[in-house]
């Protein structure tokens, strides 16, 4: 009986270790192929080059166009998601009567649960034509439309995390502000938001990380042309969309072309991992304790 109990505990422990093994596996797989990649392509060319044409006869491996494309789309997404998400959070936390909150929160969660390929469809076949009717110079594939749609997709994340942070601000602070004659807006903007600042910042950083790693919306609606531009009207390609593009083709393992997706994946992993750590760090470091 004792031995059986011990055995069970070991088995459970091994299952818990699967998650650590996953992290180790990700790093190992990415590192292995990336090292092979950099044996053939100088790391300096990869990180500083401004031309990305690995599928051409005369390949160039400068990752900047992909990075810039990723930053452009994420930037547009955050321009939508941050102010709108924060305003929604302030409304839900400080203004909305409880019954309204009970209805609105699950509806926002529905937005977060829609598969990203559906958002891709929406961006390409609804938002882009709509924007083109307002802005005739917009190309059929562009950064603007997937950026806006990605912003809508990320908004619930921002709003829900920011609202949680505001809800944890003690009521005494609000009541103090009201007692001094502040309106609800003044209380929200000058007392509650600053008090919840660390949680809100952590939510923002997490949202950026989500935008950078988002794949299907951009793979469908942004086009697949790596281009070092900040013009949101023309087709671009993000890091994630490039990985999808190569995976859709029939790339034999071991070729340089096959390794490019791991090198790009490594960059993506390091970037998002750094953002996630920063988010945790901000939340812990600047947490107001009441």
């Amino acid at each position, binding site marked *: *009986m004792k031995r*059986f*109990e011990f055995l069970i*505990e070991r088995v*459970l*422990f091994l*299952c*818990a*270790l*699967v*998650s*650590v093994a*996953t*992290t180790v596996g*990700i790093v190992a*797989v*990415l590192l*292995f*192929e990336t090292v092979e990649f950099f044996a053939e392509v100088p790391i300096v060319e990869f990180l500083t080059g401004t031309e990305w044409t690995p599928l051409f006869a005369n390949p160039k491996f400068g990752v900047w166009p992909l990075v810039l494309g990723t930053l452009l789309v994420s930037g547009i997404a955050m321009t939508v998601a941050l102010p*709108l998400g924060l*305003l*929604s959070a*302030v*409304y839900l936390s400080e*203004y909305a009567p409880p019954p309204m909150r009970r209805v609105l929160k699950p*509806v926002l969660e529905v*937005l977060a*649960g*829609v*598969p*990203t*390929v*559906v*958002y*891709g*469809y929406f961006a390409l*076949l*609804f938002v882009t034509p709509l924007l083109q009717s307002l802005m005739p110079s917009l190309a059929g594939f562009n950064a603007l439309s997937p950026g806006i749609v990605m912003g*809508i997709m990320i908004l619930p994340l921002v709003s829900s995390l920011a609202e949680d942070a505001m809800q944890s601000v003690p009521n005494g602070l609000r009541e103090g502000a009201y007692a001094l*004659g502040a*309106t*609800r807006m*003044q209380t929200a903007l000058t007392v509650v938001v600053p008090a919840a600042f660390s949680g809100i910042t952590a939510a923002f950083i997490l949202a950026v990380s*989500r935008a950078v*790693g988002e*794949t*299907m919306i951009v*793979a*469908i609606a942004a086009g697949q042309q790596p281009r070092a531009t900040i013009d949101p009207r023309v087709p671009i390609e993000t890091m*994630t969309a490039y*990985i999808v593009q190569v*995976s859709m083709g029939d790339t034999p393992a071991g070729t340089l072309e096959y390794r490019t*997706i*791991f090198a790009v*994946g490594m960059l*993506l*992993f390091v970037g998002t*991992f750094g953002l*996630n750590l920063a988010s*945790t760090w901000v939340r812990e470091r600047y947490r107001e304790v009441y």
Partner: protein
Amino acid sequence: MASPSSLPLAAPPDVDAGIARRRVLDLVFQAVALLVLLAVLAALAALVYSILHDGLGRLSWAFLTSYTSRRASQSGVFPALAGSVFIIMLTAAIALPVGVAAAIYLEEYGTRSRIARLIELNIANLAAVPSIIYGLLGLGLFVRVLGFGGSILAGASTLALLVLPVVILSTREALRTVPMSLREGSYALGATKWQTIWYQVLPVALPGILTGLILALSRAIGETAPLITIGALTYVPFLPDSVWSPFTVLPIQIFNWVSRPQVEFAQNAAAAIIVLLVLLLTMNATAIWLRDRFQKRRSS
């Protein structure tokens, strides 16, 4: 010291004006915030409308039971639907035992140990890794090193790793709601730790665990990028017959159709999206039903 009667009875006019201005600002702010929320809801409505408008006409029994074809009007989602159902069941079969075991270890056994803390931190970080990175892990590990190829098994293993953090977190929540007295009663009757967990704790926590599992799977069923990365096919003229067979899933079929310029294929994509969303809604409704039943039983 001034007597109360010498205080001005009315506030100076500029103070009144200030209060009025601040009240108006407050109302404007509230209206803007409410408008933003309504705009977000309008975006959701536009999404649903555009998909129903484009796809409802294409939806038919034939669409559900046909294979893909070169002609859009004769194409259907049968292999993709079967692939999605098959892969989700296999993902559940892998993620449920591993995830629950890991959660039991963290919640019931190693709660205070250093390594348990490390595992917790690791799970929190894994939950925020982009899904396409899991695809690269699946490609390197399951497809190449373990030699699974672009099979259902490789896809389900990849998705299982992807949803594992969610399954572990929700199982821990469910285990935490089981009252301590239940465990103590079991110990008092001479049960061992594992007997207590297996016969007392798990049955009580089961509905909560299943709710979390279904919600995690409803995320997995919409995943596209990791399955494309491991080499799922886009054209599959047969049904999967074993865990080793090549496969496609609904989101990949949608991606394939939406990437084609013809309007007919876009309509197919919209119809396939409706099928996917109905599948998702069914799963979520099951999860909510389970949760409600669970709450009712606990409160009685």
